């Protein structure tokens, strides 16, 4: 059993090395940002922790009254982990809610919702 210390060392080296963590697609960053106030919102951009499958992803935008704002079909950017949907209407100042769902390349679905405010 002389190989045991070597195995333990390898295990320790692997566990302690800074490897990137891979998970379901989690929202890392959004533009407009979560809870922020912005002056313009020509599109909704969502950056995820994983590559996503755009065909199974969706983004919806609604105003403070709950009325749906038309958006373009979400497309993924070159990194495959970012979704962009164009806003197809002129937005009046106010609070807006983004509701999204995403399917990562690991076959798992995640979803979430957040708000941002458009300042005049």
């Amino acid at each position: 059993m002389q190989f045991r210390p070597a195995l333990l060392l390898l295990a320790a080296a692997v566990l302690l090395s800074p490897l990137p963590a891979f998970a379901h697609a989690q929202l890392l960053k959004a533009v407009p940002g979560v809870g922020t106030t912005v002056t313009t919102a020509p599109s909704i951009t969502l950056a995820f922790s994983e590559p996503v499958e755009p065909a199974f992803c969706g983004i919806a935008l609604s105003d403070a009254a709950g009325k749906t704002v038309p958006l373009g079909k979400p497309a993924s950017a070159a990194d495959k982990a970012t979704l962009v949907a164009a806003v197809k209407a002129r937005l009046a100042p106010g609070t807006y809610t983004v509701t999204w769902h995403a399917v990562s390349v690991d076959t798992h679905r995640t979803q979430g919702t957040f708000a941002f405010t458009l300042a005049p």
Partner: protein
Amino acid sequence: MTLQGALVTARALHFCACAILWGGGGLLWLLRSAPGAGAGPRLLRIAALLAAFSGAAWLAATLVIITADYGSLVDADAWAALWSSSFGPPWAIRLVVLAGAAAFALAGRPMLLPLLTLCGGALALDQAWLGHAATGSGANGAVMIASDALHVTAAYAWTGALPVLGWLVFRGADRPDTKRALALFSTIGILAVAAILATGVINAAFRLDVPRQLIATMYGQILCIKVTLFVAMLGLAWINRSLAAPGRSPGMGATCHGLLVGVLTETAIGVFVLSVAALLGTTAPPL
């Protein structure tokens, strides 16, 4: 049952069935003298059919969950989107292999045993592309896929051989083919355990950032349960190994009975481990 529950159940059944094809089929194949009739070969045929049904159920549950719509099961566009996604090709390959295994099983000829075993091996490898190991890219991505594929292959080899070994011991621990099977299994077991340990550590390192997440997150806690069951299996394997040691005469009453109980208990824990793996694979690792 919730959709998520159906998904995990289908995956657990599927993992057990695929394990029997690869591990159980492999053990019978290595024995060569395997008879065409009896509970062992019959178990393989049942496993092939169960693998096909549970695999289809896993895919159906996946499609319903990712579209949040039962209607997508009969929606050609939803299926087209699935086949053209990154997990479409591995799923298509899996369905072809499953259909092949079911056809071989229904043909019921003993000489098809190697084909059933190879189907089990292909299913073990293919699984790496249907989960968290598929989220990497570049060199990291290749290591994740390779590590996960080896992990599943080794786990199936060990856990799947157990029910067939139990059947052989039940038939007669003193029979020459049973003795040969016990010797073969002890080699398979050592190789499998080494591979499972090494790749398990690598997989965990990719999913978790800091050891604290092992207790602080749901993913880590389920992983801890899996490791605990794995250690229990190891302990039991150690006891079984000493009961089956060539010095002992397994044919002698108490030892033979003890060995059978030991192997069946190890099988039961194996089913548990695969079920926990089925749950773990659908749980979100911590960010």
